[in-house]
């Protein structure tokens, strides 16, 4: 088959994986929040309320799509896609198992992080185009917040790269399968990474973008039906992307400590997805319990605490690597 057909098939497969994971995350949020608060999530439809998901999405598809008439017409239409497409593209670089990865360029980590920095623009465009005051406040907060937390995110992703010696995600996973998981040597950057991931997904305690109580629905105030569905799905797909990134960088991707890569074979995918969903469960528990930071609080947490901490940690880490290399080299 020619190259284009293969690429198209891979893209469709990845789109299916993304929709499945996004929808699964929505369903999981309602179930986890339910059980965390002494109640049950959706249980009426399907075996354990699974069909509830299909009902929600089909209903959103067939709802009337009204939009404010004096809003910026084209930006209003394009904005959901600026939010949806980058988080869909960043799915391509996640190494599900040894062979199962859609695209494996050399700089897959940098490409992924680059794609993850586009949705804030989409959110700002959505907020700005819908011309409602609440949406505009939400949009301005989104841009401010995400920029603040992207830099510590990148810096937190550096130590595993230093250890593995390559920026390719597959290489990092292989490096971890031979030596120990990178969460042990660079624990502080793992914690910083989780905090920044929580912010990128816009979940409490950094719920600035879609602060239900303050901004009613943040940037998605004016969107109805499937446009809102796109952004809602994109936000939960990003849930999975962040968890996948954290797992590949720190928790050894699709490998288990004892077992070699070949013995795992098809089970690698299950191991990887299981780890991701454990992390997603952790994110959702945090979302269900903690209250929200105020805007200026989380700004100075981002600038004044996380940024210096990650910079200092990288310098300390690099120095330690150099010293160990000298000792091992020297002795």
């Amino acid at each position, binding site marked *: 088959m020619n190259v284009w057909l293969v690429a198209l098939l891979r893209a469709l497969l990845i789109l299916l994986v993304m929709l499945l994971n996004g929808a699964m995350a929505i369903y999981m949020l309602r179930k986890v929040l*339910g*059980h*965390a*608060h*002494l*109640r*049950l999530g959706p*249980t009426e439809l399907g075996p354990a309320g699974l069909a509830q998901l299909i009902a929600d999405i089909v209903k959103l598809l067939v709802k009337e799509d009204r939009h404010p008439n004096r809003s910026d017409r084209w930006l209003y239409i394009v904005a959901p896609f600026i939010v949806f497409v980058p988080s869909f593209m960043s799915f391509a670089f996640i190494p599900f198992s040894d062979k199962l990865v859609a695209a494996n360029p050399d700089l897959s980590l940098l490409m992924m992080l680059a794609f993850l920095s586009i949705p804030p623009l989409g959110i700002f465009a959505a907020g700005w185009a819908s011309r409602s005051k609440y949406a505009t406040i939400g949009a301005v907060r989104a841009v401010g917040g995400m920029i603040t937390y992207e830099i510590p995110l990148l810096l937190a992703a550096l130590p595993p790269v230093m250890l593995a010696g390559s920026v390719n995600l597959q290489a990092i996973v292989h490096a971890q399968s031979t030596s120990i998981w990178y969460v042990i040597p660079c624990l502080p950057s793992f914690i910083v990474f989780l905090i920044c991931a929580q912010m990128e997904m816009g979940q409490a305690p950094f719920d600035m973008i879609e602060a239900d109580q303050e901004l009613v629905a943040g940037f998605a105030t004016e969107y109805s039906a499937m446009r809102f569905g796109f952004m809602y799905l994109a936000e939960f797909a990003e849930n999975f992307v962040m968890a996948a990134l954290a797992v590949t960088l720190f928790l050894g991707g699709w490998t288990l400590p004892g077992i070699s890569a070949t013995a795992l074979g098809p089970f690698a995918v299950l191991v990887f997805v299981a780890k991701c969903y454990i992390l997603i469960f952790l994110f959702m*528990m*945090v979302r*269900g*319990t*903690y209250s929200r930071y105020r805007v200026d609080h989380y700004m100075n947490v981002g600038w004044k605490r996380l940024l210096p901490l990650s910079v200092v940690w990288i310098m300390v880490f690099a120095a330690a690597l150099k010293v160990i290399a000298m000792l091992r080299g020297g002795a």
Partner: protein
Amino acid sequence: MTKPAPKLSRWPGGLLRAARIALRNLRRPNVVIQYPKQRYEQPERSRWAVEQVFAEDGTTKCTACRICEQTCPDFCIEIDLETREDKTKIIHSWAYERATCMMCGLCVEACPFGAIRMGHDYELAHREPELKRIELLVEVEAAGPRKKEASDA
């Protein structure tokens, strides 16, 4: 001053305690009463829509004395009756606006003959606007005022 307020500490001690409590709550059994399958058994005094109380032989106890109609602060009860020559009364329609009744129970307290009581059925949602006003008694001969029961004041 009872419990002293905890000082705002620099370390996230409070956040960790909150996480511990959240995980403990995760293990607690859920407290849901799954409505269509399980039902919450109501206490005996719970008040919902007004219902007629019928004597053993099926005739109504209502003597059409209109006390409940006057007591109701929102005019929810409307009795249309016609007294024949021999002083017996025919109740054409004992209309009760169930949808706008505030279910306070004042009419039941005021009724000297114990002819009405507050029911326990709370599944009263309906779709047709006509059902707002229902007739509890239609074309019924009112009971004679002879046997006057002690009403529970």
